């Protein structure tokens, strides 16, 4: 099983919606079930939200985010590229998931989830672009 696809979505809330839909189309085209691919949906949602909410905030409309999907054997890799200011999620602070409800900070949780759900999370700044590579095996369905 081998396939790849390159997507370009707007750097806006609409872009997150489009990315989810196009990921659906990609996984459906290769016979992957929702139970196998949900971690990629979560990771895509978190990563794009971060880029749009922080990196691209205040930028002129028209910013775009590039996503390369690659399916190889039973593994999917997503490469997410944006031209926002440098941001390395691997250096972001981990939230305390042990605190009681009242004391819980809601920020930072998304990146923590991505790091826990993915087997590989690699960041590099290349030229004026952030490149985040996320990879894992398809989820085993229960």
């Amino acid at each position, binding site marked *: 099983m081998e396939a790849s696809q390159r997507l370009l979505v707007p750097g806006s809330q609409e872009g997150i919606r489009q990315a989810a839909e196009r990921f659906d189309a990609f996984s459906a085209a290769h016979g992957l079930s929702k139970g196998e691919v949900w*971690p990629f949906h979560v990771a895509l949602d978190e990563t794009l939200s971060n880029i749009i909410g922080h990196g691209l905030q205040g930028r002129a409309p028209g910013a775009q985010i590039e996503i390369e999907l690659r399916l190889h054997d039973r593994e999917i890799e997503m490469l997410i590229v944006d031209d926002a200011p440098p941001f390395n999620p691997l250096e972001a602070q981990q939230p305390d998931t042990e605190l009681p409800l009242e004391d819980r900070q809601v920020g930072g949780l998304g990146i923590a989830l991505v790091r826990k759900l993915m087997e590989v999370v690699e960041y590099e700044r290349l030229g004026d672009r952030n490149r985040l590579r996320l990879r894992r095996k398809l989820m085993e369905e229960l």
Partner: protein
Amino acid sequence: MTGSGLEIHEESKGDVLIVAPSGRMDAVTSDDLERRLLALVAARGARLVVDMRGVEYISSAGLRVLLRLAKKAKEQSGRVVLSSLGPAVRQVFELAGFLALFEVEASRELALARLTDG
């Protein structure tokens, strides 16, 4: 299903409100979901079962909605019990430490019983 959307089914059992979101609880759906859930709590009371059976997956945006819902319910001396977490939702709850934050039951009936028995 092209499915970036989320539907919310609601019904009442006595003074308990049961809401059952169906679809994805993510950055795309969370604003609308939060608005609707908080409006429901304001209008119909703060004792709630959130039946998660129909939730395909949840991201941190969806988790934040549940946190705010629980805080709102608590402010109104109410309570939220979640039920029927599917494997994807349960795993995200575990990773985020949310199983310790919420009352979670295996089924809607058990969640209802927990709210009605005090």
